């Protein structure tokens, strides 16, 4: 039977741009949330975010010229992919068949030039008609917009950049199921390998919505925290006074391989992907199903695929850590707690759960990939990272959310949840690799 293992990981995050330093900061319970300085957000309802800093994408590619001018999502992807590729050792594996090496990403769109777009829309506005004068709009667009920048808006462009950088010519997909995208990408990439369509898949996610229109959109939805005070305290999943999510950005990339391929080239498996579940709420665009129908189905499907009986009461639950979607919105954290109870039954209180969004914010399409890497780091180090800012727990949320302080634990199997706006839900189960 084909098995799929992880042989490389990398991330670009608001907490840093390499595996070990970010992991250390997460174990210390540090927050990366700070005042936005990419644009002047001082008048916006939300003025803070988890922003990637000290990152130069050109340091992560062999020849920047072949990439033209990648958008920021592609830049992050290139940065995370280099770390994953190096760790996997594939860079020096000359026998890699490019047509047996594919990519599956959950990548968001490129960064919209809000300054130019606002100028174009307002200057072409016809007051009498109450709408844009399309002829004037076309003129201003031609003058103001960068043509290549608009091409880079397409969410499949990171695929092209990664294919160029690593000579990957196998199956290539990009999915954009909102906040669930990169978990879905990793799950479906695993399926590509299990089905024999490739030997190696570079999988993960990349996204930034940290621009004026992105913040606007989420502010209008009232989904973002408008916390007044120290931004580091703003993201507080599972707290009584949680007030919305905090925007983050970045990328997580993993090299997935069939075990046969990895062992044949002498690679070291870091973990094994053993379960993937996908579901749709099919309920409402704006709300999660009140009984946690979709999230619990995704978890049940993933656990079932992994051959794990999570519900039979036991002192030692078969899953030792859940990386929660844990957005810090009232609705998500309540429904996710309910869904975990449905999936784990009487074992639920004994399974430690945390949300790294408390420390780095919500990386939207990229969130799931970074959270799965967190799971694998937990397995490798036997450490569980905390949910910080959990000083005022919501009494109705009664599971173990690893409040504020990391802890040591024997960790062999983890589950990672991602739920997208609109009701697409995805769960992965990852295990310590054993021959």
């Amino acid at each position: 039977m084909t098995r799929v293992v992880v042989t490389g990981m990398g991330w670009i995050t608001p907490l840093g741009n390499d595996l070990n330093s970010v992991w250390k900061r997460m174990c210390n319970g540090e927050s990366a949330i700070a005042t936005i300085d990419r644009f002047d957000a001082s008048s916006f309802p939300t003025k803070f975010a988890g922003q990637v800093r000290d990152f130069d994408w050109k340091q992560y590619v062999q020849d920047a010229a072949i990439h033209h001018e990648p958008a920021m999502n592609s830049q992050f992807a290139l940065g995370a992919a280099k770390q994953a590729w190096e760790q996997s050792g594939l860079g020096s594996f000359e026998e890699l068949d490019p047509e047996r090496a594919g990519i599956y990403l959950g990548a968001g769109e490129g960064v919209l030039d809000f300054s130019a777009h606002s100028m174009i829309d307002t200057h072409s506005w016809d007051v009498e008609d109450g709408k844009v004068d399309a002829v004037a709009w076309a003129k201003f667009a031609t003058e103001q917009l960068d043509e290549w920048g608009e091409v880079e808006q397409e969410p499949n462009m990171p695929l092209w950049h990664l294919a160029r950088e690593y000579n990957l010519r196998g199956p290539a997909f990009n999915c954009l199921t909102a906040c669930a995208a990169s978990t879905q990408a990793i799950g479906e990439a695993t399926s590509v390998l299990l089905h024999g369509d490739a030997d190696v898949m570079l999988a993960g996610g990349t996204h930034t919505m940290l621009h004026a229109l992105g913040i606007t959109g989420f502010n209008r939805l009232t989904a973002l925290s408008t916390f007044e005070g120290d931004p580091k305290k703003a993201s507080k999943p599972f707290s009584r006074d949680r007030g919305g999510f905090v925007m983050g950005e970045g990328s997580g990339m993993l090299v997935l391989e069939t075990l046969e391929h990895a062992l044949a080239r002498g690679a070291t498996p870091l973990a094994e992907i053993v379960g993937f579940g996908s579901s749709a709420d099919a309920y409402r665009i704006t709300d999660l199903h009140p009984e946690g129908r979709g999230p619990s189905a995704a978890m049940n499907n993933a656990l079932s695929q992994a051959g794990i009986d999570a519900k039979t009461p036991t002192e030692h639950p078969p899953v030792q850590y859940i990386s929660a979607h844990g957005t810090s919105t009232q609705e998500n954290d309540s429904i996710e707690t309910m869904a975990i109870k449905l999936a784990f039954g009487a074992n639920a209180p004994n399974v430690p759960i945390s949300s790294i969004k408390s420390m780095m914010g919500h990386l939207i399409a990229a969130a799931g990939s970074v959270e799965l890497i967190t799971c694998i780091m937990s397995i490798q180090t036997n450490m569980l990272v905390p949910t910080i800012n959990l000083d005022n727990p919501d009494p109705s949320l009664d599971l173990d959310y690893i409040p504020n302080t990391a802890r040591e634990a024997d960790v062999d199997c983890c589950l990672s949840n991602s739920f997208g706006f609109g009701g697409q839900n995805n769960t992965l189960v990852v295990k310590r690799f054993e021959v």
Partner: protein
Amino acid sequence: MSQSDTNKVVISGVGVISALGVGIDPLWEAMLEGRTGLKRIERFDPSGFSSQVAGELAEEDFKVRKIVPKSHRKATKVMCRDTELAVGAAAQAVENAGIATAGTSDDPPTIDPNRIGCHIGAGLISAEVNELGAALVTSKKDDGSFDLAHWGSEGMQNLSPLWLLKYLPNMLACHVTIVHDCRGPSNTITCCEASSGLSIAESRRVIQRGDADACLSGGAEDRVNPLALYRQHCTNRLAETDGSGDITTVVRPFADDANGTVIGEGGGILLVESETSCQQRAGTPWCSIEGMGCRQSFVDTPLDGDPSAIESAIKKAMHEAQCAPSDIDLIVPLGSGIPELDSGERIGLTAIFGESLENIPTITTIPYTGNCMAGNGAICVGVAAKAIKEQTIPARLGSEVTNGVCAEKSNAKQTSINRVLVVTPSEGGQCVAIILGRIDS
């Protein structure tokens, strides 16, 4: 985890929406007659653009409110045009397949909702400039510049609270899952023109691995708005035309003098189903999905076709279908009229079929519907399925001379069609090939 490909997968329902109307039949009838749906853009004044022709569905011909259940009518206010098209095509597919779903019937659902998935390809949905502009203009200073500070404190309040949700690409699938109560695996693939084909391929795999019995699958996109048109202008892929002259020759796939494509709006949703499920409910399959292959290009620009990726994707699909090039009776390529993409397709197809390529009938949909991007591949698969069902090759428009590809202008004709190859390379470099087979072949 294990995977199996023993489950045979069929297409048992076809829903298409395009400039030529709602449903596969209006498109098919037009393709038999050689009647294009292209015309000068009417939704806005396109005079400021060098490409002024599109495949545009008249708004009076399609009202999404009329086809959703009463419980979902309010939600139509937060649908962008792309979502409306997907919901419209899905309704057609469900009706065509003869299944009952929550949104279409008071009867119990024909297929367990937990066993129906939904994979709908989507594009980079462009914000409606009138909607966004109306809010932005409230933050315009007296000197004409934009006041970001005012926007942050007050101006953004003029934007509808749910504005963002309208433009998330996954909303196509989400609205369809809600309307039809599809609770199985759901995905939104965003790979430009390859989105639909990759979605259909993924639905097939989801069914093969046993995670669903059926999936609503395909894609839809609307490019007929100023921002989306401009974004295609940036790729230098559009035909320069003001809409005067013979509009059937604006897009000339594989012609020496081809000078680009035109945009369109539309898409297709298919019911992709396990043969067992289809048999159990006494459904009538249109055709089987016998093989698929997908590859990533490795050329210097994401805008050109990569012949080796196209060739490799087709080889993989043929390997799965266990068929030889001589078994292919009909080819449905992208055939966009973009010289660089057509050239890539021609070289890739020639590598597979050799000189016999000029004798294998090839049909292209873009001269009829415009390039519907994420929806285009599903329109092609829908037309291919119809061709198998009707054993008919529709008329071809556009090109007089097509250099080794059998795609020159011709009338419809009846013939034996057992296997069809649908191949779709995309902006961004993904390429998907799908082989459909006649069920009784």
